[in-house]
């Protein structure tokens, strides 16, 4: 089977003279659960915004060799790039099933828009199973627990056939048990997706990251496994300030 990959080259985002993302190079392959970390203002979310078309950027971002930059937001989404937002974003007044339907049918032809549903599509059924939301399908999304909303968002990405999934702080505000379930969910989906997780939670990162990219002031500071990144003196400097020596792993977690 062909492996999907996302290749970002020399990505730059500038807001009125402020350079938020400054020449970032990043390549992520399918099967590699990549975490994107960095202090506040490092440009993590801006990078995701740029690749999904929400902010204009220069440089290049290719999915399986196809250029994404310059396309409109919904075209990028339809080429297979999906994302979640920092605050759980679901259509609150629509049910779980309707949320998934929207994501599944986004590319539908306008001629079929008035046709009533004939059964639940298998992709939607599968996504509800994967995310464990089958029992809640007729509940308005606004009534879901915080963790369930995040899973619904991930489910929406699955049914919209995204090859690349950007998840912006998926476990923020989750309980320990919910974190574990989310981690397992991510492990399941990374097998056939390119998954990039923006996360501050070092404990979660250590448990589930295959590889880590550290951003600081809009640039890539370090890249590698959790252990490699953690041992990198430049990363320690960014997180702990200059003059610190290597600290054991939990300390890095406590700082954040």
């Amino acid at each position, binding site marked *: 089977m062909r492996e999907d990959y996302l290749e970002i080259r020399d990505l730059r985002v500038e807001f009125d003279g402020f350079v938020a993302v400054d020449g970032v190079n990043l390549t992520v392959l399918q099967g590699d659960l990549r975490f994107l970390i960095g202090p506040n203002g490092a440009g993590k979310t801006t990078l995701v915004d740029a690749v*999904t078309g*929400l902010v204009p950027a220069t440089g290049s971002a290719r999915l399986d060799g196809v250029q994404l930059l310059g396309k*409109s*937001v*919904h075209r990028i*989404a*339809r080429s297979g790039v*999906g*994302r979640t*937002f920092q605050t759980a*974003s*679901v*259509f*609150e*007044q*629509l049910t779980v099933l*309707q949320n998934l*339907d*929207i*994501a599944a*049918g*986004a*590319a*539908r032809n*306008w001629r*079929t*828009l*008035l*046709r*009533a*549903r004939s059964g639940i599509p298998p992709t939607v059924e599968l996504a509800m199973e994967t995310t464990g939301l089958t029992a809640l399908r007729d509940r308005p999304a606004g009534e879901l627990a915080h963790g369930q909303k995040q899973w619904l968002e991930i489910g*929406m990405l699955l049914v*919209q056939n995204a090859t690349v999934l950007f998840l912006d702080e998926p476990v923020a505000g989750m309980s320990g048990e919910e974190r574990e379930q989310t981690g397992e969910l991510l492990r399941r989906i990374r097998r056939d997706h390119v998954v990039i997780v923006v996360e501050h939670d070092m404990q979660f990162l250590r448990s589930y990251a295959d590889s880590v990219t550290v951003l600081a002031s809009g640039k890539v500071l370090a890249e590698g496994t959790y252990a490699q990144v953690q041992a990198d003196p430049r990363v320690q400097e960014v997180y702990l300030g200059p003059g610190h020596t290597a600290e054991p792993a939990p300390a890095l977690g406590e700082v954040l």
Partner: protein
Amino acid sequence: MDAVLGQLYAGLSLGSVLLLIALGLTLTFGQMGVINMAHGEFLMAGAYTTYVVQQVVGGAGLSLLIALPLAFLVGGLLGVLLETTLISRLYSRPLDTLLVTWGVALVLQQLARDVFGAPAVEVRTPEWLKGNVDLFGAPFTKGRLFILGLALTAVLVLGVVLRYTALGRRIRAVVQSRGLAETSGIDTRATDRLTFFIGSGLAGIAGVALTLIASTQPYMGQTYIVDAFLVVVAGGVGRVRGAVLMAFGLGVLQATFAYSQSVSTAKVLLLICVIAFLQVRPQGLFSVKSRSLV
């Protein structure tokens, strides 16, 4: 008793006209937050469509039935044209939108004057809509009964479309969260256009209905547009349910005032009531989270 029923029927009939006009506005103004002053002129276009169809087809009954879908199309296309050329450039600039669409309304009125002349044109009422039926002992004209039925059908169809079809889900999704809809792969621009098409098309249908009870002339849209906006605002912006209750509420209220007062006094009393109501409930009868309000 007859007098009470008579006023009630008059109110219902006025309410159903208001409802038909306001229904389109619940989409374009309510859902999309666009203050389209030319909405009344789409209504006028619908009325003239009926006139033209009658000139071509001849039979009043048949041409009325042909005019209904055709006026929907005419109103809708005018709406899409306005949306793509002007309004799409003015999103998030409500005051400019108001001025521009008011200008468009004036242009359309003059256009109608040039093409059809300033005096009202005659649109014949089909035989089967002439005369009265007796409802609980008081007369109700068939034409007004037809409009009431049309308005309720339109509400029903719009409600079903919004609630149960993929199109409705998409419209509601774009209203609730534009960014999320876009990153889910929904073409929000196309959805905007489509929403505007349906909303303006409904104005066209309202225009057809109005030919049965009002004169078809270039300024007919102006008569109803303010009341229609009142219905939408007081009913709760974007809420079909609110628009229905408010349209009939205002209709009956106006008819009741008009029974004891002159028409203009009735109008003043009605406006005072609406203002007082909005002081107490500024969000309207029903409130909805929509991007026009946040």
